[in-house]
């Protein structure tokens, strides 16, 4: 990397870092929890870190613990992963415009697109003087590293955590609540936020906590397509 690009990147990292702090807190805790859980099931840090680094899909990784502790079913793992991760399809649609023309960097941005990165990137605009590509790359990279590092910590330290972290993972809920508020304050967006909450709650009530995501996505899609004429304006 030449010096000019290095400077641009470090500038973007500095600008992006504060936005990722809630993710740092949340991912460290959840990553540690994941590493510890894997260890408990007989999978040391070499396996938990490999899973986090290669698959990088928080909630599905927790689901996959069950897969790893029963029989070998790679096809079931693939199908489950497609279902649990289906929400990424919606994130991608929202990022088509933002990630346009980013060349090679786009591959990494797509590979690491997760709930938290999507939330930040769709709510925050890069500050003046900071190149968008490097800004988005920084957010993706930091979030990715937090998750992998948290997993490593959990796998290495096991039960030896120095302080009571109970409740610290609420940082992610808090992040989503705040970014939800940021999103709906834009003109005409409150009704969209309401649609998301209502569809998700409906799905939660009908289909239960474990199976709510896919039906929720379907209901959301129907609602958005049915209301297109009204919501467009």
């Amino acid at each position, binding site marked *: 990397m030449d010096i000019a690009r290095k400077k641009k990147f470090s500038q973007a990292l500095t600008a992006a870092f504060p936005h990722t702090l809630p993710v740092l807190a949340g991912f460290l805790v959840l990553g540690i929890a994941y590493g510890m859980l894997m260890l408990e099931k007989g999978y040391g840090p070499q396996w938990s870190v490999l899973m986090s680094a290669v698959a990088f899909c928080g909630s*599905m990784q927790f689901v996959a613990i069950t897969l790893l502790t029963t029989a070998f079913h790679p096809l079931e793992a693939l199908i489950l*992963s497609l279902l649990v991760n289906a929400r990424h399809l919606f994130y991608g649609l929202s990022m088509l415009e933002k990630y346009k023309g980013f060349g090679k960097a786009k591959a990494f941005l797509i590979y690491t697109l997760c709930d938290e990165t999507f939330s930040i990137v769709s709510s925050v605009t890069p500050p003046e003087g900071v190149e968008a590509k490097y800004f988005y790359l920084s957010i993706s990279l930091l979030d990715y590293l937090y998750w992998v590092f948290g997993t490593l910590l959990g796998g290495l330290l096991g039960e030896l955590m120095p302080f009571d972290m109970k409740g610290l993972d609420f940082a992610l809920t808090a992040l989503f609540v705040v970014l939800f508020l940021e999103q709906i304050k834009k003109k005409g967006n409150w009704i969209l936020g309401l*649609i998301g909450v209502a569809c*998700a*709650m409906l799905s939660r009530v009908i289909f239960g906590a474990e199976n709510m995501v896919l039906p929720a996505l379907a209901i959301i899609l129907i609602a958005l397509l049915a209301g297109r004429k009204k919501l467009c304006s």
Partner: protein
Amino acid sequence: MQLTPVQIILTILAVALGAIATRLTPFVLFPDGKRPPEVVTYLGNVLPPVMMGLLVVYCLKSVPILSYPHGLPELISIAFIVVLHLWRKNVLLSIGCGTALYMFLVQAVFVS
């Protein structure tokens, strides 16, 4: 551990493949040079606030409402975050204080 190392690696790859497929599909269907259909552009525009609403509910999906503490720590913390955020409009302050309040509530107040 019941699986062999090769089986573990294959399982990890299967999980990864599922995740990559869901992430990559929109970008493959609608590459940079091609103009996506209007309905896709529409969805891309309206989805962020909708998905944030979904994510908030998703985070709370397993909170017990009928048994102690009846979702009170979550309710109180979220109400606090909303008020603080509308007042100070500082993202990190709202998240930091909201999380601290929640930790205090689950560790010291609503102890089961």
